[in-house]
């Protein structure tokens, strides 16, 4: 409408003389609307960035604590009689705890700290996993029995929380797990250099721990689970996806059947992932009798999810190779197969790899289908022994482990869930950067 009044040079005698230099009202209006649109755009970007900053800040502020851990140094005398007695009981670790307690008391006495606590109270300072650490050491090094060895035991989650500022003195009135006397003890121990705070390798490399000892829980085993799942996804979805795309793009006749397949692939890419989980439960576990909670099954389910993504991106990169390449190859006498495998596919490879990596990254962060095939719970408690076990022994995956931790009661698990998100994000970012680098280095523009 405005164009009509503006545009026509024959608009009649009423037409105003205009100058290019003088800004008239209409131009002003148009410039203003452009400026407004730019402002909208900038504010949209700023809002997006603000959300990103808020998210990153929340993740880092909540999660970084998981990467440091408090340890208590205790010299323990490995008394032969006590160890033999412990090995004879049902719950051996509870006897080992008593051995640790004796050592701990002696150490506190040496530092001149008077506790006035009974064994139960003293035990609350240290992770209940300390006894298992000691027992493992004794079983692995029987020659050390009779000597005094200094151990670094993991401090309990409350003690750790106190040193990280998560647990405060005023919170302890109702807390049956710790009281003010413990905090005084920690302060005294810190003065005496019995406690140290170091980088928490156990969190990155360890296995999951039960609800009573969050301080011991780690992502390691579930990382291995995720790794084996991604291996299955890669081994299956890359060859199947590429073969399907080449056939559909280069060989398949154009008819209603291929059209139908095409539509279905696009639709599958948009199917919610939980649907694949139900399918996996029905097909792989209940029908094919594959083992529960196995990374193999998880990988198969995620393959179903990733395939459409890979097929779509592969087809797009095959399409992007100009027809002149095919024509030239055919022109010098190559067969259709030769033209594709010698010329088209190598040129499309960077695009295919990028699509595959993005697909894998998506699969790596997927939780919903894993809920249904039994990968959530106290699962990632053992490292697999060997490759076959890696595929078939029950294991969890990184996102499933994070979900599980976020559900547990102890606040220290909550911190670990955020820490797990940091690890997962590092993996996702590394994969995406790899995809970008591949694209930048090898992609050709026509």
């Amino acid at each position, binding site marked *: 409408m405005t164009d009509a009044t503006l545009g026509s040079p024959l608009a009649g005698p009423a037409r105003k003389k205009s100058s290019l230099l003088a800004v008239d009202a209409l131009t002003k209006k148009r410039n203003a609307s452009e400026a407004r649109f730019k402002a909208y755009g900038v504010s949209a970007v700023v809002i997006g960035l603000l959300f990103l900053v808020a998210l990153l800040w929340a993740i880092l502020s909540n999660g970084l604590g998981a990467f440091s851990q408090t340890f208590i140094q205790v010299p323990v005398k490995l008394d032969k009689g006590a160890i033999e007695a412990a090995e004879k009981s049902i719950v051996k670790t509870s006897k080992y705890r008593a051995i640790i307690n004796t050592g701990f008391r002696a150490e506190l006495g040496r530092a001149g700290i008077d506790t006035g606590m009974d064994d139960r109270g003293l035990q609350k300072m240290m992770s209940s996993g300390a006894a298992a650490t000691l027992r493992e050491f004794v079983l692995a090094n029987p020659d050390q029995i009779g000597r005094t060895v200094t151990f670094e035991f993991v401090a309990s989650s409350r003690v750790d929380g106190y040193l990280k500022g998560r647990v*405060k003195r005023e919170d302890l009135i109702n807390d049956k797990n710790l009281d003010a006397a413990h905090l005084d003890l920690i302060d005294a121990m810190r003065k005496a250099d019995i406690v140290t705070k170091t980088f928490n390798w156990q969190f990155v490399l360890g296995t999951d721990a039960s*609800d009573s000892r969050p301080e011991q829980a780690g992502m390691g085993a579930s990382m291995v689970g995720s790794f084996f799942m991604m291996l299955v996804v890669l081994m299956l979805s890359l060859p199947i996806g590429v073969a399907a795309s080449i056939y559909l793009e280069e060989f398949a006749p154009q008819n209603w059947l291929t059209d139908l397949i095409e539509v279905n692939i696009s639709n599958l890419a948009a199917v919610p992932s939980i649907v694949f989980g139900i399918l996996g439960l029905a097909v792989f576990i209940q029908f094919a009798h594959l083992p*529960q909670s196995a990374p193999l099954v998880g990988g198969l389910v995620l393959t179903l999810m990733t395939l459409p993504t890979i097929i779509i991106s592969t087809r797009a990169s095959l399409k992007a190779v100009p027809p002149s390449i095919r024509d030239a190859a055919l022109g010098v006498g190559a067969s259709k197969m030769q033209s594709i495998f010698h010329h088209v596919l190598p040129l499309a490879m960077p695009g295919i790899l990028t699509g595959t990596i993005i697909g894998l990254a998506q699969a790596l962060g997927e939780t919903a289908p894993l809920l249904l095939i039994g990968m959530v719970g*106290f699962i990632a408690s053992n490292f697999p022994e060997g490759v076959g076990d890696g595929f078939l022994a029950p294991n969890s995956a990184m996102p499933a482990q994070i979900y599980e931790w976020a559900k547990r*009661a102890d606040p220290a698990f909550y911190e670990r869930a955020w820490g797990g998100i940091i690890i997962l994000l590092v993996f996702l970012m590394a994969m995406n950067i790899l995809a970008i680098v591949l694209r930048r280095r090898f992609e050709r523009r026509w």
Partner: protein
Amino acid sequence: MKFNTYASVAAFAIAGVLATGAAEARDQIQIAGSSTVLPYASIVAEAFGENTDFPTPVVESGGSSAGLKKFCTGVGENTIDIANASRKIKDKEVKTCAENGVSDIIEVRIGYDGIVFASDINGNSFAFTPTDWYKALSDKVVVDGKIVDNPNKTWKDVNGDFPAQPIMAFVPGTKHGTREVFEEKVILAGCEATGDFEAFKAANGDDKKAAEKACIALRTDGLSVDIDGDYTETLARIDSNKDGIGVFGLAFYENNTDKLQVATMSGIQPSTETIASGEYPVSRPLFFYIKKAHIGVIPGLKEYAEFFVSDEIAGPSGPLAQYGLVADPELAQTQEAVTAETTMGN
């Protein structure tokens, strides 16, 4: 669709190769079921792995019903060995089990779990009775002999002694075992105590079942919110709505005493002692169920069960009690039953 078929065919081929490669017997106990029992089961599983030569059992969560359903799918290595449950197995489930060949089931009661009512630590304190909860949350109540929609908006409306804090309750969703206990031991008890039960019974033509149903129907006007997630979600809701009062497991509350204060029920403070003695009214037994057919096939299964119920673990001074389980005063009988492999119905 066609691609799915291709994918599954290829997947089966690879899976087949892998499965034959590692076809030896499963050596790890597999457990599934109640998310209330999960913390206890994981503590025991971890200790079991540390103290014996058997691998650490895996414990899946998912809810009592889901676990028992899995348990009842049949006998064999790719079915689970143990189902955890926060309620007794139902006759219907026993029947399904038997139809699928799971006939010998060993029932093990591990202890009791208290259900507590907790609110924000800086808010008002409450001393509830079941009647208060019934009056606050029931869909319909009896006023002056007539059944009307629940008119109460604040706790003061419910009980003159309470502050005028708006009613906002976060109760477990219907898929939780906790909900059943809440309905039966709190809402229904309150319904009976007020005498409304009789009114509902009369209104429903003397039908007791229908009267019970009318009692436990919760209001749907937004003052009672079903939480389908875990207690963590309930805690988050209370964090953002300081007037909220939530239903928690005792163990969860004891791990979050810095954020929550607990209300008394009928004048009794919930604790492991009051629940063990039966004084605190809202508690329930926790169970796990073992497939007898798997004992001797899956290594360590019986040892796990015996380890679980041993005094050092499930007793009053064991790690489970430390975490919040209320030890079973009749643990010795359970130990005997496990050792003798006594199945249900015998």
